């Protein structure tokens, strides 16, 4: 039993972007890589949920259009013309085909859920760790690790991809009381899956990264 931590009106929000040294604000202009990533995320979600994709461009845009937060991406894709549009469409269709070919259909009994949002307040709500996981598989823990976290990437593999998932592993541990047992990044350019087991050392290193990021934040605000 403990005091309930309540929301601080102006908490320090830590996201994967903050850990990368970027600001939280939407300072990244919409370009082809960002739009492609958003569309592939939507198509992955659709594939996991209903098991099929018909027209990648149309399905992806329709999925994004229902979310007002994606308006800028929808507008960007809508304004693509000529070669840029056909190249974008070709890349999307190629990655979608790889995803459908390589990603298995998950049994509903595995409890797959997509775009699961984690919001973990710490220090009395003055710090909030935030993340959205593309796919969580497995029942809630009954005392031991029971879920796997999956992130989808439409770009080239980067060293920081693992760091992002480790951050999500920390969030899931803090939220549910049990660490996930495995993390996996699915690269839709190649169909490759990069997986690693979650260990105490991995989580401890992530805690250190969060503390370092908070330290940088504090220095920058002085």
């Amino acid at each position, binding site marked *: 039993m403990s005091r309930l*931590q309540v929301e601080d009106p102006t908490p320090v929000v830590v996201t994967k972007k903050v850990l990368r040294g970027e600001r939280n604000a939407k300072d990244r202009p919409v370009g082809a890589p960002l739009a492609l990533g958003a569309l592939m995320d939507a198509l992955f979600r659709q594939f996991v949920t209903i098991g099929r994709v018909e027209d990648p461009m149309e399905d992806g845009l329709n999925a994004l259009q*229902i979310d007002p937060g994606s308006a800028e991406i929808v507008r960007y894709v809508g304004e693509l013309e000529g070669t840029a549009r056909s190249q974008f469409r070709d890349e999307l269709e190629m990655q979608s085909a790889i995803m459908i070919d390589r990603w298995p259909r998950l*049994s509903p009994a595995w409890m797959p859920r997509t775009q699961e949002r984690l919001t973990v307040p710490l220090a009395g709500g003055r710090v909030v760790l935030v993340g959205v996981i593309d796919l969580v598989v497995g029942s809630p823990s009954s*005392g031991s690790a029971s879920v796997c976290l999956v992130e989808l990437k439409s770009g080239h593999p980067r060293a920081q991809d693992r760091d992002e998932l480790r951050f999500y592993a920390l969030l899931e541990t803090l939220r549910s009381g049990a660490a996930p047992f495995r993390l996996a990044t699915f690269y839709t350019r190649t169909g490759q899956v990069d997986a690693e087991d979650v260990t105490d050392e991995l989580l401890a290193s992530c805690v250190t990264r969060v503390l370092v990021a908070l330290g940088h934040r504090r220095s920058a605000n002085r």
Partner: protein
Amino acid sequence: MIGTSLSPMALPRSRTLTDALVARSEAQLTAAEVTGLRDELEPALAETAGRLGPGVGVRVDAYRLRFPAVADKGTGRFEWSSRTARRPLALEGLRACLANPRLAPAQAIADTMARLVRTTPDRVGSLGDWLAGLSLGARSVVQAEAVTWATQLAGAIDWRRLDRPFIGHDRSLSFTTSPQIVLRGRIEVGALVAGSPQRQEVGYSATALFLVMTGRPAPTARDELGLAALTVALDPRPQLPIRVVGWWPQCGRALVLPVDERVLRRAVDAVLESLEQATSHRRDQAVARCDG
């Protein structure tokens, strides 16, 4: 400090939450106290309703208590979206899962959506009508949102320990003297609490309430939970809320609020305060319109 928060590290989570939900409890609220609260609240709402003006309605719900400054923004007209559709779909899917334990939430929601599209698209404005008009991509988002929400709730509680739970136990309440003010309690699960001394009181059944909350606990959390209890207490159906368990799946936190007169009185105060803000906001809007 009213209420107790559960440790997020206690596992399994479903056992901790279910223990908190169905625990035996001494009677803390009487039907007479509820009657007394109703007698105080009703004239206060009637007075506020008189200041609202004709044809102006206000819904007091947890959202208004939490975000009083933005509750009156927007068109005020209900619209279906992936956010507004996920809860009714998820609750319907969860009912199906409880009726058939071999059914997983993902399958139950797919079945629910297919049935709604098949059977109700002629009813304009209904969920089925809205779903039927969606493209494949948009419908997949709605389905995915509902599956995620339902899976979280399905895993939060040990359902075998609840005796005929009510799934989707919402209450809307208004008085004849102030029909334009509606108190709305959004309650995901209601469960009868066995063995409570209250259960024997003049035909009233003691009910524990389980609420799925959004985001992380706000300073208004106890008022939000108290409002749900108030709507059940004042509802004509003979149920006395014995406790409210609020659960925030995004952060794993939970708050257990035993319901007594003090909690309900605090909820009444929060309701009246939010209405005061709503009336002054609308007055300012009217003045601005006249000035414009």
